[in-house]
């Protein structure tokens, strides 16, 4: 089955080199990475104890590997490889909620508000804190795109297994 996917990918690349929209390239890469990884997880663990965290780890890993043209993917890979417990992603989302509320209350200084929001964005983006604002804004754009594609791919995987 994996070979099927790989062959399909190869074939498409060679036959229509100019017609593949890059979003498709991403999704193909992504699924071809994630699905085998999940299978392997399944086979290795063999118990019903497939941790949600490890799945998340695989998911993030697949995201990072299939979007290697972007700076944030490098940061994500670093984060993933350094910490084997991918607790960071879950905590960051909860942090995001808290910060959001706080910034909603602050009414004052426009520029300060804007800067704080930019800083929030930076926190959301993997590696965003190490970039400057310009770069970060550009990277956020393609990060959003990749996240969307990732959700689509995940949904289809989930769909197909139910």
């Amino acid at each position, binding site marked *: *089955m994996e070979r*099927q*996917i790989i062959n*399909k990918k190869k074939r498409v690349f060679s036959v229509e080199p*100019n017609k*593949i*929209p*890059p*979003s*498709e390239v991403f*999704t193909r890469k992504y*699924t071809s990475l994630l*699905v085998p990884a*999940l*299978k392997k997880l*399944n086979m290795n663990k063999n118990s*019903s104890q*497939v*941790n*949600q965290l*490890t*799945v*998340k780890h695989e*998911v993030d890993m697949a995201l990072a590997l299939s979007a290697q*043209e972007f700076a944030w993917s490098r940061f994500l890979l670093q984060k993933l490889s350094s910490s084997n417990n991918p607790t960071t*992603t*879950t905590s*960051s*989302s909860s942090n995001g909620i808290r910060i*959001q509320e706080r*910034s909603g209350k602050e009414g004052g200084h*426009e520029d300060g*508000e*804007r800067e704080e929001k930019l800083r929030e*964005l930076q926190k*959301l983006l993997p590696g965003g804190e190490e970039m400057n*604002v*310009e770069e970060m*804004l*550009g990277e*956020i*754009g*393609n990060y*959003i*795109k990749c*996240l*969307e594609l*990732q*959700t*689509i*791919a*995940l*949904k*289809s*995987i*989930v*769909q*197909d*297994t*139910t």
Partner: protein
Amino acid sequence: MLESLVSLECMSLSSMDVSVLERLKWLQQQPQQQQQVRSSTNASPELLQFHGTNNDELLQSTFSHFQMLGSGFGPNYNMGFGPSHETMDGCISRTSSCQMDPADTMGIILKNSEENIAISLKNKRKSEVKTREEEKTEKKIKVEAETESNMKGKSNMSNTEASSDTSKQTSKGASEIQKLDYIHVRARRGQATDRHSLAERARREKISKKMKYLQDLVPGCNKVTGRAGMLDEIINYVQSLQRQVEFLSMKLAVLNPELELAMEDLSVKQFQAYFTNLPVVAASKPSIMIDAPLFPLDQQGSLDLSVINPNQATSIEAPSASWETQSQSLYNTSSLGFQY
């Protein structure tokens, strides 16, 4: 020193009928004066100022087009950037151009004087050490080109945004007027000479461009005006996407044991589903226009979801119809402002 300049000035002012070319030739034929001037590098900014204040009325009338060159030299001089004979040429070219009324000839003068200055730079430097000469000329020419391009970029921007900027500038102009600003009468008065403000402007332009792009990307951003609100929307959107991914991965973790069974169909179905579902996402963003430089996702071109929109009508299939409704409900439950 100053007297020589005064004499130059008098010459230029008195003989207004002398053609431009003659004037420029005269420019080139002043080696001795320039060497004199070169010896006193410190006095150069003062010379400029001296010129500026004296030639006020004359220059103001014609400098609407001249500010490019003038301001190009201005910051150079302020930073002590070049030897004085450049300032000489700058001064002279300013005085020489003050007689020209039509804009076209101004442009020609600018170009000619620049070329001549470059040429004169090259010519005069032969007497000095050659390596140092070439370095300096290159540096200067580059800097001139740089500042010129900056000014050109700025003037382009000013052409497009003059209305919004004039108010800012007039308020800023009061705080930032230097003596050299006397010479620039354009709308971009206060911001012209400052290298820092130039760079800042360019940076702000880039950032606002990217914000506009993000606005197209994030659904629902069009209704919110103002940067803070937009940023809020973007933050919400990114957070919701991340939460979705988490939720889905959780689901996947639960379903993982059954994964193997359904795996064989995955490759085919998944791509079908992909094609039919992407329009669902893209429908909320009908006007996606993605900049190539921002999305170097592939060598083949820019990420272009709008290409898939035409597929919407053709590739909807029955097996995935239920998926669509399911995905819509998923979006609705977890969305913070999605619209379909």
